């Protein structure tokens, strides 16, 4: 890597390329969104998986309206979490295999910038559709309108944290033996607190309590994750490539 940067410095001695966090972020996000737009099947599969898992529970457990309204918030959260988890390899894996990731580490932009951009694109492709679809699934479970709103709000706050945590784990597991099972062992335990507070918010609303404590903790987790985890993701990508 040092050799390559030395080469680049020799090629353009007059104006050295200026890298920046925002430049790398915008470039990587635009690139990954364009790829997702041209191959919409990945995003569609994520959403279809979510809808499918959520519709398996009434068939397996029983379709009594009280039971469904009781388990609805939790089932929807677990379904969204699993769908977001299954989409994780899309962030880095294909770029790692074809060598694009190595090229990106040679770019003047810092790894933390473009890695964050890729994770933001991943959230837009997986987290946002899941959040938008959740009220529809919630209706199938007979949740009340205010519960649907709280449910969508908790997903909107929680799924970016899942993308950040999962992105760090996906970068760490690049090139490892064990693939998806290993990634599950790494990421799912870290998802547990987010699941508890996310499902707890809609649960509290459904049982007539205020969801604000849960939503506040989710927001706090989102802020902490946004500040801290990009460093971890950048480090993980550098560990994976060199």
């Amino acid at each position: 890597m040092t050799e390559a940067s030395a080469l680049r410095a020799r090629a353009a001695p007059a104006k050295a390329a200026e890298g920046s966090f925002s430049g790398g972020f915008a470039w990587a996000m635009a690139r990954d969104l364009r790829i997702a737009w041209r191959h919409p099947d990945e995003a569609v599969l994520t959403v279809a998986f979510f809808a499918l898992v959520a519709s398996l529970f009434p068939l397996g457990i029983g379709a009594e309206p009280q039971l469904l309204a009781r388990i609805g918030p939790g089932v929807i959260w677990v379904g969204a979490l699993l769908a977001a988890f299954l989409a994780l390899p899309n962030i880095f894996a294909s770029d790692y295999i074809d060598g694009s990731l190595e090229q990106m580490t040679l770019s003047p932009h810092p790894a933390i910038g473009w890695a964050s951009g890729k994770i933001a694109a991943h959230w837009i492709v997986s987290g946002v559709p899941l959040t938008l679809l959740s009220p529809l699934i919630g209706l199938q479970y007979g949740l009340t309108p205010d519960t649907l709103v709280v449910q969508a709000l908790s997903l909107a706050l929680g799924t970016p944290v899942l993308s950040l945590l999962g992105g760090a784990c996906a970068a760490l597991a690049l090139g490892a033996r064990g693939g998806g099972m290993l990634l599950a062992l790494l990421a799912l335990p870290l998802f547990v607190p987010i699941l508890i507070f996310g499902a707890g918010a809609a649960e509290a609303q459904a049982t007539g309590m205020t969801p604000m404590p849960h939503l506040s903790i989710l927001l706090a987790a989102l802020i902490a994750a946004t500040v801290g985890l990009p460093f971890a993701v950048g480090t993980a990508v550098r560990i994976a490539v060199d």
Partner: protein
Amino acid sequence: MNWFYFASPSTFYGLAGRMAPWCFVAAALLAAWGLFLGLLVAPTDAQQGAVYRVIFIHVPTAWMSMFLYFLMACYCALSLIFNTRLSAMMARAIAPTGAMMTFIALWTGAFWGRPTWGAYWVWDARLTSELVLLFLYFGYIALANAFEDPRRGDRASALLAIIGVINLPIIYFSVQWWNTLHQGASVSFRGTSMHVTMLTGMLVMSGAAWMYAAGATLVRVRAIILERERRTQWVRDLGAA
């Protein structure tokens, strides 16, 4: 005096070999004393009867499960920041013992919970976060061994261990933050709500768990050092001698 003398695997190998037996001897003596205090001397609890005596295993292993994870994360941070080989080896050597301590804490907790709460397991914050800790240990071990290049495994798993540290305060404070079924801390720096022999027995057993963990880690790190350094001259000399 050179503070970094034992930071090299070749010098630490000998030191660990000399220290490990003493750790095990201390662990055996402390465990004998602690079990004597806990099972024979300490009075029966007014509310729980003799069932409470499981704390002499449960509390020390639960403390060690968290402490060992913290120690492991410290070694991981050292290995990431300073790129020292021995720190990564120490972190790898600690992980199985930490996972075992976590497992024993959960298992003994279940045995205590059945007669006291009427259930082996409840989804309470303390229990759930301790279970997550067990999976963090498993994830660390799996990731460390998932690569052809051991140094790559060292660095990837080190970062994972550091991310997982966020779970430790959640476990520790879970009994205060949530109104859990698991009871609050009986021991604190401001004093204790226990009989003094119970406390002494528990602290002695903690010492035993600590010494056992140190001994097991040192034995394991010796094996890791030999495996990693097998191509170096000093290990070959060791084999020849």
